[in-house]
């Protein structure tokens, strides 16, 4: 059966949605310069905003590999834009796992999609990895590059080894909530228009 294999159309779909997701991430990321607590709140903001393209993406996914490729692309883009390579294993891991979960529901089951979106949302936490793992040198780097002491203190109060667990859970929860929201939006707009 050739149906199981990914075709050019699928690759292009993946590319487009990755680009959109990155734009969402970037737009939210810009807000982070205002206050470090906003950096921590990415776990809520990005899943909720990004859920709409993601759910539309899920309606187009029918074969294994699409979500995985998306996560690989995200990892590459994160690296190129200077977020580092520390988060890459998490991003790709989350992508593969999300793909497997969605596949177990044959990409049709809504429950599995919710779970899968929750898992995929974990990639956002990869942004924090440099902060958590290389905390000391990262802090020095920030201070040297001119961030104020206050910003650093707040950043590290919000994101450290203790809170990363909470942040991961929040990511997952809001990924799931976002799936419902996204589903509603997709239903409201796209199913009516007959695009899905």
């Amino acid at each position, binding site marked *: 059966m050739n149906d199981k294999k*990914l*075709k*050019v*159309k699928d*690759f*292009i*779909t*993946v*590319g*487009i949605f*990755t*680009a*959109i997701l*990155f*734009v969402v991430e970037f737009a939210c990321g810009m807000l982070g*310069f205002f206050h470090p607590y906003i950096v921590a709140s990415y776990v809520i903001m990005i899943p909720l*905003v990004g859920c*709409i*393209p993601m759910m*539309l993406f899920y309606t187009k996914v029918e074969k294994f*590999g699409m979500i995985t*490729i*998306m996560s*690989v*692309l995200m990892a*590459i*883009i994160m*690296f*190129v*834009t*200077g977020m*580092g390579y520390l988060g890459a294993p998490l991003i790709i891991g989350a992508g593969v796992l999300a793909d497997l979960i969605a596949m177990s529901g044959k990409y049709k089951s809504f429950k599995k999609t919710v779970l899968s979106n929750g898992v995929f949302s974990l990639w956002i936490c990869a942004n924090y990895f*440099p902060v958590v793992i290389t905390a000391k*040198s990262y802090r*020095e*780097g*920030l*201070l*040297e*590059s*001119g*961030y*104020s*002491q*206050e*910003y650093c203190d707040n950043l590290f109060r919000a994101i450290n080894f203790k809170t990363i667990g909470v942040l991961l859970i929040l990511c997952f929860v809001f990924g799931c909530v976002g799936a419902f929201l996204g589903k509603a*939006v997709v239903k409201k*707009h*796209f199913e009516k*228009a007959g*695009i899905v």
Partner: protein
Amino acid sequence: MKIKLDPRTKLYMIFIVSAVVMMSATTPFLWAVRILMTVIPIILLMCNKRYASAIRFLFLYAVALVLTFTCITEDSKGIFMAFLVGYCAIIVQFAPAMITAWYVVKTTKIDEFVSSMQKMHVPDGITISLAVVMRFFPTIKEEYAAISDAMKMRGIRFGGGNAVKMMEFRMIPLLFSCVNIGDELSAAAVTRGLGGKVKRSSIVDLKFKVQDYLLIIAFTAVLAVFIYNKYFMK
């Protein structure tokens, strides 16, 4: 004088610059290396007749550098200073990566990119998707501008101050047009034989030239200097 680089050299440049950006410069010598590293893509931009963007980047980077070194200290207070510090830090820190990425995206044609990825035996899935991502950012920007124009004509400015509406009004039409463009794109790609079983030939012939070797050596040296200073000079 037009310098044409092999896409593989460009990818290597991106790779090195992103790695170096992660390491903070601590000594004046490292700062010098870092600045040199930023100047190279700017010069390359100029060589490709992209004077406007080259000068814009140069200006931005220079201003941020001067500000960082002169008037910002660790105990600068106040909201305005916080903004200034934040933006300058971001620019100084990430400008090298930004400029290099900009240079590569602007000067690499998609066919060159695809055939170089093919030569490096990257799986087709990654190559095609990545090519689409690269091509798609300008498209998103255009579509977004078109949507804003349409909303202005209709007299909708900020969605009535409602954040959710604001997002919905922009995001949904954007997704609509992106999905449509995607369909057209894949139709066009399939017509040109992408995804066929035969190995595709390419119209561009990629070869490393002198300038490629020079740049690869230069950037490897930059990385080596940074790693040496960071981990072995303590």
